[in-house]
């Protein structure tokens, strides 16, 4: 009798409600995924349908103008290149140095935790705050004015945590055996860092750098605070020139009531997104190319 009772337990279980919910759950959940993805789709479709017709090389060859038919964003494009390029010169070497130190040299755990804590905090500070600090310290404090270099420094410090974290992660992926091997041959810590760690982790560090650059290219708020909203009709010639960047040019056009400017802003967004996609593709390509080389 016990046997049949036990056997019945295998066959029967009264939780029909749960069973049905079990079947429904993935459907309900994937609706949310669909919602999130359709948001991206709606965004891209809006941009492309509005801006497609306005897309031409003139967009980056012409200066801004009150006449939307002739307006371009040459000064903003160049301004972005200057500012972001300069900011990378600041964030990439500093970030890699900090990442190296964190992962390889800082053995004292409380210190490492402290630095990581600060970095996470810094990453959570609203970008516009960086703009305020840049405005106060660089523009007026150091007398750099509302210049490219003030903007670049601000962006550089802002994106520093991104590079640092990526660099530290890159160093951690290097197999311990590889380092031990070098130490066993009598290499000093500096030599190991220079000949083993740096060359092997560089590709991954570069993806971190690209991440930081993409972030800097899209950033509008801190630059807005530092440079204001400007109408510039000349190319930058020095780092102390006043400047504008692509996201600000887009902001300017978006805020105007005329439909022609709306189209113009859509076209500018397409250019900006293409640029970001190219950067991302580079990062992925680098990651993919070097990923499999470090397996011992």
């Amino acid at each position: 009798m016990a046997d049949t009772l036990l056997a019945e337990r295998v066959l029967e279980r009264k939780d029909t409600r749960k069973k049905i919910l079990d079947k429904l759950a993935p459907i309900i959940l994937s609706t949310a995924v669909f919602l999130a993805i359709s948001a991206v789709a709606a965004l891209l479709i809006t941009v492309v349908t509005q801006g497609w017709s306005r897309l031409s090389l003139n967009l980056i060859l012409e200066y801004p103008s009150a006449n939307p038919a002739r307006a371009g964003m040459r000064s903003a494009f160049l301004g972005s290149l200057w500012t972001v390029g300069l900011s990378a010169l600041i964030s990439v070497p500093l970030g890699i140095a900090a990442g190296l130190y964190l992962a390889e040299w800082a053995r004292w755990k409380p210190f490492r935790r402290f630095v990581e804590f600060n970095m996470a905090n810094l990453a959570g500070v609203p970008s516009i705050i960086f703009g305020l600090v840049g405005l106060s310290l660089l523009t007026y404090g150091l007398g750099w004015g509302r210049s490219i270099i003030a903007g670049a420094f601000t962006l550089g410090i802002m994106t520093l945590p991104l590079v640092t974290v990526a660099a530290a992660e890159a160093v951690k992926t290097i197999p311990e055996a590889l380092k031990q091997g070098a130490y066993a041959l009598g290499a000093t810590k500096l030599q190991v860092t220079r000949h083993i760690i740096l060359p092997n982790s560089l590709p991954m560090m570069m993806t971190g750098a690209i991440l930081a650059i993409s972030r800097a290219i899209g950033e509008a708020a801190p630059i807005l605070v530092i440079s204001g909203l400007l109408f510039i009709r000349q190319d930058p010639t020095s780092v102390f020139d006043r400047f504008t960047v692509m996201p600000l040019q887009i902001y300017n056009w978006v805020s105007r009531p005329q439909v022609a400017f709306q189209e113009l802003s859509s076209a500018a967004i397409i250019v900006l997104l293409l640029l970001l996609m190219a950067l991302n593709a580079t990062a992925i390509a680098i990651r993919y190319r070097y990923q499999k080389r470090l397996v011992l």
Partner: protein
Amino acid sequence: MLAKRIVVEREPVRVGDGGAVIEVKDLAVRYGKKYAIKDINLKFERSQITAIIGPSGCGKSTLLRCLNRMNDLIPDAKVEGKVYYRGIDIYDHTVDPVAVRTVIGMVFQRPNPFPMSIFDNVAFGLRVNGMKLNKTQMQEKVKDALIKAALWDEVKDRLDAPAYSLSGGQQQRLCIARALAVDPDVILLDEPTVSLDPISTAKIEQLLRQICYDYTIIIVTHNMQQAARVSDYTAVMMPDEQMIGRLIEYGPTKEIFTNPRDKRTEDYISGRIG
């Protein structure tokens, strides 16, 4: 509850009374095209401890996971052949794999209590099985399970403490208590002491000897001394030339260890393989 526990008068080694609880017929498991085990035929006797031994990669754990349909959770695992539990084919489409697991419980290699309190760990199975229990009944059930798992005296004053505050051996006994709480008939243990120290291991082995009167226990181990110490029956598995796990010998533990029929068994238990 179920009037199911038949206390069997048993001697340490004894051919079963003919009451096979689980019967495995022509069982094979493949992952994609590659077979992991093949041609397994075996009967697990009621109220006995059966050990499955063999070198790493011989498919011991795979076989064990077939017995309560845990292989269903591995995406490309395919089970062929039959597994009967008290006469019912548990791979039949009318059988609910979730219900099977409430009757055939499992304990894993690494102690894996949930990140909850000791009490909630034991109560988990009761709650998800939709048992309508009031607070006192629940407490009773949890207490019973902890007593059976020989853990009650050590934790009765701190049932609300996180399970992770326990030592490794205690955690594993908590996992056993958790499995016992849902009132299973068969308990599968997959190398339950592999991550434990000798003292904790001894406690668990002693515990298994205590509860085997009420349950049918199947234990996978690659520690031969353990198999010899705790089990009544032993199944020896060995991979063949194509690395497919096969059952090469099965019988009362005493015979396997003193008088093995198969040359490979002899080599294995004397330490020449593995």
